[in-house]
């Protein structure tokens, strides 16, 4: 590859890599959100559907 | 309208009176700007000429202003007076304008010493340069007072003020240095006036949102 072609490849590669890094970060966030929803679902199941509300 | 002006005047007068009694900010600014100018002498390589000195003058002015701006809202914060001011029956933007005018007075007082010192140590200042100082001061104090109020609300106060302020100060430095060195100084004065207009209006309109809960 000529040096000009290398620079073009580098420029487009940088954009691709940036988007992939962003995907990875969002992926990590999804993992965390999954864990949290599972925790909250467990919490909701424990306190049960028969929970009375505090308006007595 | 006249009550607005009266409110602004009262607020500015309060700050000036506080400073006259405490005498901490202004002497510090004066000493800081003089010390900075001396540091610059040692920082400039021999044979640099006059132009770099003008650039450094503006750096000194901006950082001296930052010093003053860092302290601008401290009296209100320390005594929880800001809440009282916000509740007072005056336009919130009057609080900002009063503060900006007081800060302008302090900065001008520091410059009364700094500019002759600069002319003595480095190079003369022509009329467009002085006009540039006046116009840039307005920009520094209007934008700076608003940004300083933002920084005062944050956890990191003194740390974040320069970060918020410096990008906004870049056009002022360009205008100031241009008015000092360029043969077309008037162009830069017009630019500074444009900056002042745009950002003063923006600051005036948005201060209410910065200071209310």
């Amino acid at each position: 590859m000529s040096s000009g072609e290398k620079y073009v490849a580098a420029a487009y590669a940088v954009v691709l890599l940036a988007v992939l890094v962003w995907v990875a970060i969002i992926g990590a966030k999804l993992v965390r959100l999954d864990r949290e929803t599972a925790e909250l679902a467990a919490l909701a199941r424990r306190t049960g559907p028969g929970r009375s509300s505090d308006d007595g | 309208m006249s009550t607005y002006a009266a409110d602004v005047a009262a607020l500015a007068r309060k700050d000036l009176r506080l400073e006259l009694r405490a005498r901490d900010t202004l002497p510090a600014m004066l000493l800081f700007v003089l010390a900075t100018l001396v540091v610059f002498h040692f920082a400039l390589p021999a044979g640099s000429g006059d132009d770099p000195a003008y650039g450094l003058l503006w750096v000194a002015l901006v950082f001296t202003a930052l010093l003053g701006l860092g302290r601008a809202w401290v009296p209100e914060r320390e005594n929880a007076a800001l809440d009282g001011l916000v509740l007072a029956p005056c336009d919130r933007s009057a609080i900002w304008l009063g503060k900006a005018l007081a800060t302008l007075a302090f900065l001008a007082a520091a410059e009364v010493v700094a500019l002759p010192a600069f002319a003595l140590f480095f190079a003369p200042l022509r009329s467009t340069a002085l006009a540039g100082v006046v116009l840039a001061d307005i920009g520094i104090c209007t934008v700076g007072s608003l940004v300083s109020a933002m920084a005062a609300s944050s956890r990191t106060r003194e740390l974040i003020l320069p970060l918020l302020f410096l990008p906004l100060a870049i056009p002022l430095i360009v205008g100031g240095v241009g008015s000092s060195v360029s043969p077309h100084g008037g162009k830069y004065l017009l630019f500074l006036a444009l900056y002042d207009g745009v950002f003063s209006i923006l600051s005036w309109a948005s201060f209410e949102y910065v200071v209310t809960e």
Partner: protein
Amino acid sequence: MSVAKSFPARAFGAVGLMAAAMVMVFFVAPEDADQGISQKIFYFHVPIALTAYACFGTGAWKALRLLWTREERYDLESYTAVHQGTIFGALTLITGSIWAKASWGVWWTWSSNQLVLFLVLFLFYCAYFMLRFSLEPGPRRARLSAVYALFGVALIPVSFLAIRLANDFIHPTVFTRHGAQMTHTMFAAFCVSWAALLALAHVMYRIELLGKRIDANLRDLREALTAA
């Protein structure tokens, strides 16, 4: 929600646009006579810059809506838009630097007004995040961020003017790039590329916003479940 239903369509549309852009840039548009193949960087660099402006503009618009209506959702939307703008701004600087190296042999030059402008804006918007992280979540943080975002868009034209004026007395080594003597196909490739990048930014914006909204809802849910 009707918006949620059309999002997958938009996301796939973005993929299609990007594919079309790649074809146009590398197979259809002719090579530039002066600059050779390195001119191809232009098809990404300039649209990325324009997309960054669009993101900052969106952020400011959402900020204005927040201050006007006080609806909480505009805070997340403004924040996400500014975040996208900063990402694309950083990409503008990086691709611009690579193009500068390819064209003139230097990784940085002060003579490119657009590069310098993006440097100033990058500094400004990095401070936006520092401001946000130093404030407690709540209406105050939303309002201060919104005001700062508005100052950002006011800064864009003023800074640009300042940088142009500064060239008069800074006298950088001026590199010239032969201007937009674009053929029709080149212009078409540019437009498709720009549309593709705007679509990409939009998709990224939506996904981030969804993530942030889920986060906020989960927090409320946790509070509700652990309260009683």
